[in-house]
Every structure is written in C-alpha cells, then in structure tokens.
C-alpha cells in the first residue's frame, strides 16, 4: 500500500510537471525565491497522496516537485494566495492546510453542540441547585485559608481519602 502511494505521488508529481510545461511557457525568473519563501507557501498546502504531512516537511519526489513549482510561481510574481488557489483548483480542497474558513460547518457544528451542551448542563445544574437548596439540611463546608477550620477540612478530607 505504501509502495502504491509512493508510485501514485510520483505519478501525480510528473503529471503536474508535464501539465505545467505544456500549458505555461515559463518566463525567466525575475528573482530567485528563497527556500523560506517557498516553505511559507508550502506550509499552507498538503500533498493529496502523502500521509498527514505538510508540504514544507514532506520529502517525497512529488512534494519536492510541488515545491519547485511554488518557487517558479513565486519567481513569476504570483502571490501566496494565488499559488495556493492554483493547487486547490487543480487537486481539490484536500490539499489546503486550512479549511476552517471555507467550511463553516466544521466550526459551527461543534460550536452549536457546545452551546446546546452547555445550555443543557446549565439547566441541569440550575434544576439540581434549586432542588438542592430546598433539600439542604446541614450547613455547607467552607473554610478560610490558613484558619483552623481549613486545617480541619484538610484533615477530614485526608481521612476520607478524597
């Protein structure tokens, strides 16, 4: 399986290089982008084949090709966003490092659940609190820090092993 993944990534890489050389005549690079520039863009991308590794880290030939391409786009003067978009257009959203902004359901979903869960928990506590107050018989255990009462509480808790 690993080997197949390897071959596929190689194939994707080659295909991409082929498609680029076929479609876009490359102008002479105006300036050589630094490896840091390339990594800045690469961090925002993931190869669709490699396992969960950001492009700037991944060392497979396909990913090295992608990085070479990023360098070329940067040399052509394309912005980081434009370059990311090119890869997304070509390979789908799965190559994007950050899908939160494009996929509201991802954060709205948990948010709604958290709010509903929180509301439910609050309701539960409130109901329990009301019944608790009514049922309360003995005085609550409180204590001031450093006071003897606190020392007693520590002692009592220790005895109960809780």
């Amino acid at each position, binding site marked *: 399986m690993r080997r197949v993944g390897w071959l596929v990534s190689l194939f994707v890489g080659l295909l991409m290089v082929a498609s680029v050389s076929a479609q876009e005549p490359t102008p002479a690079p105006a300036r050589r982008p630094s490896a840091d520039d390339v990594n800045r863009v690469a961090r925002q991308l993931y190869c669709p084949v490699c396992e969960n590794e950001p492009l700037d*880290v991944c060392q497979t030939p396909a990913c090295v090709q992608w990085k070479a391409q990023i360098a070329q786009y940067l040399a052509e003067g394309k912005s980081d966003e434009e370059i990311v978009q090119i890869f997304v257009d070509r390979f789908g959203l799965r190559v994007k*490092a950050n899908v939160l902004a494009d996929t509201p359901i991802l*954060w709205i979903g948990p948010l709604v659940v958290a709010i509903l869960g929180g509301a439910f*928990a609050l309701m539960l506590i409130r109901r329990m609190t009301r*019944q608790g107050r009514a049922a309360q018989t003995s005085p609550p255990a409180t204590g*001031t820090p450093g006071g003897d009462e606190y020392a007693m509480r*520590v002692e009592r808790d220790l005895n109960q092993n809780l």
Partner: protein
Amino acid sequence: MIIVDIGLIALVLAFASAAYAVGAAAYGGRTKRPAWVASARYAALTIAPLLTIACLMVILSNLTDNYNLEYTYRVSNRDQLTMLKITSLWGGQHGSVLFFAWLMSLFVFALFVKEWRGNRDLEPWVIVVSIGTQLFFLFLSLFFANPFARLWLGGDGEVSAAVIAPAGARPFTPSDGQGLNPLLRHWGMIIHPPLLYLGFVGLTIPYAFGMAALLGGSTASDAAWIKATRRWTLLAWLFLSLGLLLGGRWAYDVLGWGGYWGWDPVENSALLPWLTATAFVHSVMIQEKRGMFKIWNMILIVTTFCLMILGTAMTRTGAISSVHAFARSSLVGPFAAFTGLVLLGSAVLVIWRWNYLRSENRLESWWSREAAFVLNNFLFLTIAFTVFLGTYYSLFSELLVGEVKMVRLDDYNRLIGPQVVALVLLMGVGPLLAWRKSSPQTLARMTRQAALVALVVVAAVFALGFRDLGALAGFGVIAYAGLITLEEIYRGVRARMKLSAESPFTALSRLIARNRRRYGGYVVHVGVILMGVGVIGTMMYQQQTQRGLRLGESITIGDYTIIYQGSEQYVPEKEPDKLVLVGHVLLSVAGGPFQEMNPPPYREIFQQGGGLLPPALRSTLAEDLYILFMGEEGGFGTLKVLINPLVNWIWIGGVVLIVGTLLATWPSGAAATATVRARRRSLVVGEAGR
C-alpha cells in the same frame, strides 16, 4: 513446522478457554452457582499462559528465520537485528492483534489471579464482559489476522498464505523475508505501541466492572464498581499518557518537522479515549463522594471503551489513511460489528437499570466541587467531540459532499486552543471549591494573590516582547492556575504544620502519603501546567529558516550561527535497505567559538519509500535548536534550522505528570491499613449489631 503448530494450538485453546469462561460465568451468574463461576475464573486464568506460548512461538519463528510462516516472511529478514526480530511480534498487523490479545490477557490474569474479594454479585459478570472482549480479539486473531498462516505453493504455481494447506499445495519457504518496516526500527516506535495498547486494554477493566454492576443489578454493586476499578482506571490512564508522550517525543526526534503532535488520525484515535478517560477519572469522584452522576459515569466509560475499540480499529485497519496505519484490511467489518454490539448492548443495559442509577444527592450550588467537575467533563467532551469530528471529517465530507476535506494542524490548534485554556483555568480553580457549597467570595479571597502574580507574569511576558494576545492569555492562565495549585499544596502543608507541629518536609511527605490520590492529582496538574508552557512556546514562537549552503557557508538564526561542513553517505551493513546521508555542521552560540554538532543531523531514506529526518539538537530549558540536514545537490547542502522555544517543558511536564499518576495509583500502605482498620471496625459494629 512444530513451532507454528504449537503456537496455533495454543491460540485455539486460548480461544476455547475464553469461550468456555464466558459461557460458564454467564450460566453461573444467572443460576447463582458459584462452582460454575469458579470454573469460569480458572478457565480465564489459562488464557494468559496460552497466549504467552503463542507469542513466543511467533518470536521463535522470527529468530529461526522460518520464512515459511507468512508473518515472519513479512516482518523479518536474515539481516535483521535479534532485538528487532523479537519486537517484530507487534511490527505487523497479524502479530500486533495477537500481541494486543496477549496484553489484554495479562490484565485479565492480574485481575482474576487472586481470590475474588469484592462484591460476589459482580464476579461472574466481570468475567463475562472482560473475557467477552478478550474473546473478540482472539476471534480476530484466529479467523481474520492469524499470525500462524503459512505459505503454500499451489499446483498452479501460485503462492498463497493459509493456516490449513490448500488442496494439492506444498509448503513454500522463501529464501529471505521482507524485513520490518524501517519506521518501526526506532526504539520510540518499539515501545510506544505496547504502552498505548496497555492503556487501551486497561480500559476494558473499568468497562467490565461498570457493565457487571448493571448486569448484576444491585444498588450496592453500582457504587462498588467505581471503587473497585479506581486503580485499574488510573493504571490504564497512566499507560495511555505514557504512550502518547513517547509518541510525541518519537515524532520530535525522528520525523524532522520540529513538532511533537501533528493531529494525525491515528494519534487522534489514541487521544480520544484518553480525553474521555480523563473526564471519567474526575467524575468518578462525585459518585464516590456524593452518590451522584451514576448514569453519566456509565455513559462515560461506555464512550471511552467504544473509542478504545475504534482507536484500535483505526490503527489496525487503516480505515483512515495516516502515518501509522496498516493497509486496509478485512478487519474493518468485525470491528464495526463489535463496536455496534458494544454500543447497543451497553445502551440497553443502562436504560434497563436506569432506576438503580438514580442520584442519591442533589447539586447544592454553582460554586461547588461538583459543579466544577461538571464543567470539567463538559470541556473534555467538547474537546473530544472536536477531535472526533476533525478526525473523521474526511470520511463525512467524502460521504456527504463527495469531496475529501481534511482538518489539519492549524485548524485543530485554533479550534482546540481556547477550550484547553478554559480547561486549565478550571483545573486551577476547581480543587479550591469545597464539596456541596462554596462561595465566589471565598474563591476570590483564596486566589487573590495568584491573580496578582499572574498579572505580573503577563506584564513581564509583554515586556519581553511577546505581543500575541493568545499567548499572553495562555501564559496568564497558566501562571494563575499553576500558582493556585502550588498554593493549595502549600496550604495543606501549613495546615498540617499547625495541627501536628511537623517540619515542612515531614508535613509535605505525610500529606502526600496520607492522601496520595489528591496530592498525586495536584502533581499531575503541575505537570499539565509545565507542558502548557512548552505548548504555548512552540506553538506561537517557533522560528525557522532553510537554505542551500556551499561548503563553509553559514546560516544564522536567533543567537546561532551554523556553518556547513560537507556531507557523507553510506548504507548500514545490517540494514541494506536504507541510505543514510549525514551532514556535518559547526555551531556557534551568541558569537562564541564554533564546535562540531555531535551527533550530526542526518537523513535516512528507505528503499521501499519514506524515511526519517532526525535533527541535531542543542537543548536548553529556554529553547531547542533543531538542525535538519535535507541532503546535498549540486554542491549545495540544504540545512533547515528551527528554534523551538520552551519545548523541553513539555517533556519535563510529561515526567511530572507520570510521577503524579504513579503517586495516585500506587497502593499506599497507610491507606490500605486504614481500609483494613475501617473494615474491621465495621465488622465489629456489624457483629455487635447482631
């Protein structure tokens, strides 16, 4: 081969023993016949020795280069180091399922080896549920991932693997094996899976007790199961935490991305049961102390157990592609069926016994320990839910919208960061709240000093040039919670000193000895605080740069200057399927003299694809300098250099966390004597009452 036959027979017998134990225990439990339950217990005790034999036979097959055994052929070869021939037992899918079953049998053995001293009603049902789970893994090992399958050459010249010889086939023995996956030859990858597995299998025991309490169906037993499993749960939690920590350290040491946690689906599947188990470890205290949240605790342990099964399935079947997963396999079906069965069965039991689980007490105030635990559970569950959603998002999105979208590192950090900050805040404040009722005024009074110091810390961090709002908030909360925790320990010490006129040191050690659980817990909290410092440092302030350098050229980052000194490459004698590229570099710190980095950064490239990228490290408490050698091309050696601020606090915090857990888990002499004394007292009272 006799080795294979012995192993196979042992596995079959273990399966038969487990099946008998489940049947006999269920029968004995239903008809109240202790002899049947005892018989089931003895049968359960045979599983561990039998599986030990089965595992030894796999190892023996690897050691004797028996490539007729399909498993040995897949994970071993003649050149392989002896140690790796042994650890290959869990280096492939089929072996690891057997290994998993073996670890589970050890836990079960430890549980049943002593005469049952707890609630008699529980025993048969604990056997049914725990050995039932064991039976499932033995079933997998026997019918879906049998490590004792042999290679056969059919009449048509096709080689196949089967336990029983296909018609007309004769044994086939390749001259050499394929060898262990190179990723699994690192010590970190050798011990990290067994630790995680121990955590996973350990969770079976509280689950078995919980379900047994429901099946046994007495109100007495529903409180008993929590007490009986406290130590088991903590032990499982300890192993899970250790496994996660070591996994993180391994990633940091060999994967070369400068991080320790990548939110990889398999990492997440191990984190999920840890999250819900952590919630459980906290909420059981409410049930013990106040007889509340019984239903909730049942739901938590069922969820944890299901997440454990799911996690095992994820790592063993590769349903989601990730660094760790084995190829997609035939195990997906059985795992899905078993998870479904567990969920359905547990749900039916909880609903059936709903009335037994009713709360004995009511929550009296918002400002109480109970309420803090409710919030704690709520936060752990929202985090778990977020991780779950993120992990399986690619599956959901593929199913629902037909396009695969993956949730990655940055998204996770953004989603989970604020939740963790809230949790840490609560971790500080929660233990200050008294059971039943406290007041905001008391709380404010008790945390006033900590709040002031935390503000000073934030101001100092700001003055040091840290401007990110998230980081400032993070450091503030960490300082606040950390100080409160330390203050709480100090207050305990002072109270004891006052009460018993002890020296501070004696007071501290007695305090811990008298209540290991509470103070062990506080130590764990301190560990979390220290880890938090490291997480914020690396998450917010990591710096990196990468450049191609000619011989003698340098690269500067922060206070460090690194000179490239050329490279060499070689193929290790014992591992001919690897190519190792070593980069030599000199390092100067803050304008000091240049010194050679030793060990140097290197890169391993595996013949079958992939590789490792271990860094050269200069490690201090303030930061790690992390130098990577990416390779040399056209006279340029490429170095990637990262600065990871405060990263060591993660490992230090991890060690503190483990020490705290050990403190809480270790059977304490004083507590044991106290229990015995209490039991004696209750016996005397009971007899006097008669």
